[in-house]
């Protein structure tokens, strides 16, 4: 990051190669539109390039910092284009399809084993979370809903939603730390 902050174009290209996959996937998942996702990623990368000198390693990892920036740009686009409602509707349709726990169950064991990179390990950990916890967390993270909106959407008490998110996120932290991913 220091090299990027110093204006090193090659260093930035290397950073892009490392992060663009998950960042683009995140943007595409939230926007559900490849052109929008590309634009959001481009805006995020330019912001990373311009603000690299403000990055503080004591506060977050580079990946976390990049995710925060990308997600902010995506949320701006969702707000600006008023497409949030459509995205949420599509989220509902998608989430109504799988049964709790079926995602990991239907995923072939060989597929998981073959993914030895960090992304596949994280994905595996995520799918080990109880469905209700993952569902609440993903609604907050990908759909940018507040806990009030999530409670209304899932027709659950607010306290239940808060507990699910807290437990899910703490369990995720524990699993990621055990795997030395974070």
């Amino acid at each position, binding site marked *: 990051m220091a090299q990027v902050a110093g204006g090193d*174009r090659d260093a930035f290209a290397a950073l892009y190669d490392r992060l663009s996959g998950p960042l683009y*996937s995140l943007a595409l998942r939230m926007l559900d539109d490849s052109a929008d996702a590309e634009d959001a990623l481009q805006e995020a990368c330019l912001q990373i*390039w311009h603000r690299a000198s403000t990055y503080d390693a004591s*506060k977050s990892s580079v990946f976390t910092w990049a995710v925060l920036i990308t997600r902010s740009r995506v949320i701006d686009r969702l707000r600006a284009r008023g497409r949030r409602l459509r995205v949420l509707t599509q989220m509902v349709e998608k989430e109504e399809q799988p049964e709790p726990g079926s995602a990991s169950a239907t995923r072939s064991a060989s597929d998981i084993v073959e993914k030895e990179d960090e992304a596949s390990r994280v*994905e595996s950990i*995520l799918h080990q979370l109880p469905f209700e916890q993952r569902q609440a967390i993903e609604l907050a993270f990908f759909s940018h809903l*507040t*806990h009030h909106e999530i409670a209304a959407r899932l027709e659950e008490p607010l306290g239940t939603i808060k507990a699910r998110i807290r437990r899910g996120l703490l369990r*995720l932290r524990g699993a990621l730390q055990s795997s030395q991913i*974070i």
Partner: protein
Amino acid sequence: MIAEELQDQAALYVLGALDSSEAAQFEGQANANAELQELVRQLRDSASALAYAAPAKTAPAELRSRILDQISSETKVAPFPQERRSVMSWLPWAIAAALAIYCGVLAVDRSRMRESVSTSQQKIETTARELVTTRQNLGAAQQGLVTTKQDLANAQQSLAAGQSDLANTKEALAATQKNLAPTKEDLATARSAGSLAEATIVSLAGTPNAKGSSAGSIVWRQDSQTGLIKLSDMPALGPGKDYQLWVIDADYKDPISAGVVEVSAKGVAELRFKPTRLTNHPKAFAISVERKGGADKKEGPIVLMGTVNA
């Protein structure tokens, strides 16, 4: 140990699931709690891993070229060399001074705007008050207009009634004049003959007991205690009834009979009369309906009457 409630808030905060006021409140708490800050950092790292939960997609190759071309075209501001720092050390101070001046301008502008807003508010309040007054005046004027219209209608109604009364009066006057005309002719004749030097003329008009438009006149001569009576449009009386002439004198309690007046089939009468008693102060003459042949004292209803002018 961080309270469970704060852990809830931290988890929601890193996911962006708190609303703006809740997030601001949480940040205030986190700033004063190092342990909470560390939890936030860890949870934020964990939350960012959720990006891997999205279906893995590869960004288009042309996007990479586009981004890299864009950053290449921009002039990246490199860190200033050490030896130039002393030269450019005034730059932050210059920026700060410029900002201070700008803030001053903004403060003056803000003050002017406040004054302008205050003036505008006063104008609005004044206009609002004037509007209320105008509305009140308008209401009063409308009420006055309604009253005036009512008065006008009443006046028109009164005028119509007055015109009707005037027409009736004119009609009655014409009838009286018509009745009086022969009497005047008689009076003129009598005066020319020198027989009525001191004569009084009395018009007889119908009372509420009268039927039809009967009327009459009397020429009364005080010195000789005689008179001439003429009647017209007198309704025919039933069998056993006669018209009787009376003189009402202030010196007598009862009217003094002046005899029965015979009316023709055409309802007219003309005769000379002389009261049965001396009358020094005649006040009025009257015609009543009495029994056939007349009565000593008035008994029936008076149908014609006329007062003697002093």
